[in-house]
């Protein structure tokens, strides 16, 4: 359960940063924290007590002692997606800084209403 709690906390901290922090970079950090929390959650769901990695490195390993492979596969996908989003987000932040000269989110609101 503590593993779950850890990932939940990561998600919560990430969201907290997204809502409360004013700095764009910190918001991105929050986003990534939340995403890591989700990834951790996925992996910990797949865990089975005393399980091994689902790799048949030798013939004759008992498949019933292995952990669920699906969450691992999903995490792999999710990580790449997070990384892609982060790259794009950083690019946006650079451009925002160039246009607005600030990283304060409260000042970046030329589009409203």
């Amino acid at each position, binding site marked *: 359960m503590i593993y779950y709690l850890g990932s939940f906390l990561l998600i919560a901290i990430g*969201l907290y940063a*997204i*809502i*409360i922090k*004013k700095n764009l970079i910190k*918001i991105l950090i929050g986003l990534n924290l939340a995403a890591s929390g989700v990834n951790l959650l996925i992996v910990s769901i797949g865990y089975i007590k005393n399980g091994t990695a689902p790799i048949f490195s030798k013939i004759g390993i008992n498949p019933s002692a292995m952990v669920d492979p699906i969450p691992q596969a999903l995490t792999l996908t999710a990580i790449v997606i997070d990384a892609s989003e982060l790259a794009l987000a950083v690019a946006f932040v650079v451009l925002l800084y160039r246009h607005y000269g600030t990283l304060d*989110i*409260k000042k*970046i*609101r*030329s*589009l*409203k*209403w």
Partner: protein
Amino acid sequence: MNMSLELLLATPFIGGLLTYIGGKVHRWVRNIFAVLFSLLTLGEMSLFYNTTFKGDVWGSLFGSKLILQTNPITWLFLLIVTSISLLVIVFSVDDMKHEEDHIVLDSYYMQLLFVEGAMIGIVLAGDLITFFMFWEIMSWTSYFLIVHGGKKSMDAGYKYIIMSIIGAYAMFVAIAMIYSKAHSLVYPDVALVLSQSSPTFTIWIIILLGVGFFVKAAVMPLHTWLPDAHSEAPSPVSPLLSGVLIKMGAYGLFIIFYGLMSANLAKNIMPSIFSTPVLLYIVQWLAALSIVLATFLAIMQEDAKRLLAYSSISQIGYVVLGLATGTSLGVAGGLFHALNHAIFKSLLFLAVGAVIYRTGTRNLSDLGGLVKKMPFTFVALVVGIIALAGVPPLNGFVSKWMIYEALLQKKEVFLLIMAFVGSTGAFLYVYRLVHSIFLGQLSQKHENVKDVPILMQIPMWVLVIATVIYGIFPGLAMDVIVKGMKMFGFAPIAYNLYGFPQGSTMGALKVINIASVLMISFVVAWIFFLLFSKSRKVSQYDNYAAGQVVTPELKYNYSFGFYMSFGRVIKPIFKISIERIYNYWVDAAKIFGDYYMRRVYTGNLETYNSYIVIVVTIAAAAVLLGGKIW
């Protein structure tokens, strides 16, 4: 039979498209097409006149079936629609020449024909959805006609379309409510279901449908669009709007009261006053208020078309008042007045349009003395105002008389007095028209004014003749009306070609006799006038004022603020402007809406992100509370 109604309905629409395409070839091709197709529609109408048909056509072209029906009342309204449309199109050919932009004119004629088609559709509709569909088409096509009139007409058109949409959606709710109950919208089915439904339901239906029709018919609290729209629209469009389009509201009222709700009215599910169901009684009062207030407002106008527009509100008040009496005499009077009003109001608008065409102004105080310059237009206008004032032998007389008589028979004296007041007031404002436009001093600007071209004269001629014919032979119209009303379960009224014979419900009336008496007295008065008057004939410029010689530039006859003293008397009534009340609410809603928009879409990403978290939190809280938030 089946084909013919389709044809009648399709002709204006197809004609509209062809006219538009014709405009790409040459402007005369367009004009000829427009006239031709409206003529064709009128021809078809008269060919099928007074035949009965029920059923659906065009299986699935429009998704759901188009259900059409006819009855004599339909033909009465079709007659109004097709003939006035034709005249308007003929009038437009010269009147709209000044517009240089080709595409605007092409679409103008197309929309004229579309409006005509839509109105034919409304009248022919055999179920509520067909009715509603054409109703909406009529709204937006006529909107485009109104905004053709220039800068100011845009605001007028905007007001018109918004109020139309509101009215239409009120109707829409009613129709949907009926549908959810009846699962059919064909008139007989609807009537059947409504006759079995509860009073509350019925009252809601009447109110909702009524709002829709009142907006279009411009009955008093919902009339605010009309004075602007009718006066700002191009001259040929005004007769179409005033003469025909607002009659669709009257037709709708007739259909709901006597086509769909007759059983409910007969059963007296509502308490009644003066043997009128209370809702109808309220409608009567609204109509009567329209008559009086609009008349007063018309008296105070300085703008010829605005004056006529207010007069339209007042006259449609008579139509609605008659329809809402519930007696066969009153209803017949209302329907007859609808026809008559269509004729003489179109005539008046065309005459004023002709004046505007030549002088370029419709401000009464700028005009004057045109009687020698535009004699024919003068005659047309005079015939129109006499008819409007309800003087025999012209057509306004009989229908108004029937409405008075109906009120009298129901002993609704107060309403009767209001109707009388409206009629007397009409004399005041119509006199204003003749006086300010045609009598008095000719403005120097208008020295070279000629009478309008022949194409613009023809429609007026036709309407003048119609005014006289329907005035002298009311039986022509009564024929259709009485036949139609029989189908809706009204007691027949005895009538003959010249009026009403002895023993008819309203007593004997023969227009010719009354007219001849009037004529004779008029002639006698004139003879006396000629014999004993001390006046001498002078030229239009041979005038003086307080010993001072008047230069031609100076306006010496009394034309601005004509009824100023009368205005002072009735002024308190106009302290409360309905329009101002509406504007107040609209502005309040705008401010309110803007205020909240600015607080929701702040542009701040933090706020936006917190929305997401809040939504999730609510869901989470719901789960924690055991899913019991609802």
